[in-house]
């Protein structure tokens, strides 16, 4: 994908550049930041993460499986003790809870990886090691016709460096 990438040294310049780009109808924007910042999240106005759905489904599957395993074992290999329930849900709650946590956690991580497209074998074109170190990066998708406009906006807000990437 063609676009322009810029490095910024300051947070507020980055936020203003993103806001200005969005005003000028640039929609495909990505930000690289050494640490998560609410300011950038607000400027990008991205939708809420869907990781929570993976957590919910994983947790429900886990708790179901966690009850099913001991109930099935008790039914298959009954230990009959003086009129007590062969399959007793109260002690099985421990196994149900543990498997809810286990499968819920693993599916949360799976969801994060799937939604964030991880693991990835190559870094995006334009990625710069500075973006994990101390600088902020702004990538904006722009064809040859709109690239000069994006460059101008980024420079106006104090970009340290602006590059065209293809």
């Amino acid at each position, binding site marked *: 994908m063609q676009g322009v990438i810029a490095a910024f040294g300051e947070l507020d310049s980055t936020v203003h550049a993103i806001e200005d780009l969005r005003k000028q109808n640039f929609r495909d924007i990505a930000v690289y*930041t050494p*640490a998560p910042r609410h300011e950038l999240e607000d400027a990008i106005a991205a939708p809420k*993460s869907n990781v929570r759905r993976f957590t919910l489904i994983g947790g429900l599957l886990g708790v179901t499986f966690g009850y099913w395993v001991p109930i099935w074992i008790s039914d298959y290999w009954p230990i009959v003790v003086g009129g007590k329930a062969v399959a007793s849900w109260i002690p099985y709650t421990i196994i149900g809870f*543990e498997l809810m946590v*286990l499968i819920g956690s*693993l599916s*949360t991580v799976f969801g994060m990886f799937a939604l964030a497209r991880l693991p990835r074998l190559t*870094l995006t074109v334009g990625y710069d090691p500075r973006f994990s*170190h*101390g600088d902020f990066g702004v990538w904006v998708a722009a064809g040859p016709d709109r690239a000069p406009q994006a460059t101008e906006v980024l420079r106006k807000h104090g970009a340290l460096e602006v590059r065209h990437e293809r």
Partner: protein
Amino acid sequence: MATMAKPRPPHLDGPNIAAAGNRLPSVQDYKQIDREIIATLKPTLGWFALLGSAILALFIGIGSWTYQIHEGLGAAGYQPPVMWGVYIVSFVFWVGIGHAGTLISAILYLFRAGFRTTIYRASEAMTVFAVMTAGLFPILHLGRPWKFFWLIPYPNWRLIWPNPKSPLVWDVFAILTYLTVSATFFYVGLIPDIAVLRDQETNPVRKRIFAALALGWRNSDTEWRHFTRAYLFLAAFATPLVLSVHSVVSFDFAMALVPGWHATIFPPYFVAGAIFSGIGMVFTIIIPIRKFMKLQHYVTINDLDAAAKLCLFTSSVVGLAYLTEFLVAWLSGNPVEQEYFWNRVFGQWAWSAWIMIICNMVLPLSLFSQKLRRNTTWLFILSIFINIGMWFERFVIVIPGLSHEYEPWQWGGYHPTWVDFGILLGSFGWFFMWFLLFIRQMPVMAIAEIKEIVPPPMRHVHGHPVTADGSHTTGGAH
């Protein structure tokens, strides 16, 4: 928008006094964090000496275990009626040590406790390695350790299944879940920091390893958005898990009809004890780390003071539980229970009970003094006492209970052998070997999270441009 804090001007080099909105005043920018934390990865002679000692201790443990496998469990000093000994004591001890890490990384994360930020990575590593150590002990305790997997329910040709009503089976689920979830939580938190190492590394081999471990992390807003959500949910899962794991471990005792064990107080008592012992171990590892890795301006005295208050609180809960046990025995009117508790503090095992009481109840009272809470030497010495006291707490629970049951003719003694002590020493070697390897390969502090609490670099502060010397002018509002 969230906070837009004023950065500390770079020319000021004043005392390290934290204020609201700026917890680490001596840390001025993101690059300084990377530089100083990556500098801790360089091995030193002292580190090699410690690693060598840990590996030596581990070999002593392996030698002792080999001897025990050859000779049988009798080599470990088991003698009826005491058929649980140092291994079960150490199992509970190491599971307990693991608890503080998850408390600090997950529970305090949900509570937004600022002091956790700089100490949680080391505590989390401690958790993972402590649970790895704890998991060895039930296997060491088996007569045929190679058949440990029989406790896991899986379809097998014998058509035999474990009893899911047994606390030992619950333990398998609880410990394996805890190990998996804490290791996952630990690794997920490490990914952005490994990406920093990948980007800063110059050695091509190490760079490739870090690149593989970072999974292609790029610090993009999409990645952070899903990461922060996933981290929150993992913390939310880990929080009840911490409380459940030691509760389940306590059921190993509380479900049995042994005097002193069969008590409903056990789950909260064990959880409080676990957190208390874990905080003790956090002090044992974090105080030398901050001193020898020169990270005093990250783990500030204020952070240690806050952790010491948590230590004092959990010590009080544990002390209350000790006293409540006596009250319950007294009110129960059960002579066996009363006899057991009398024997605990004035009889055969009085020495171990008093070590426990002095180390866990009396000495931590010193933390009421602010001066001692802020004295790192005292905190380190106290942490050693807490480690010893908490090992003896489990000794006091396991041994006197089994050696002094209902019938006087059944009463007996217990004498651990050199094999027990060799394996106990080996467990410390195993734990510290992993921990020492970790602190020189991975950042001992969470780089990305520290960057979150440091004021970000700003061009304009309160609408005024910042000049080259860090001050800002009154004109030129943007």
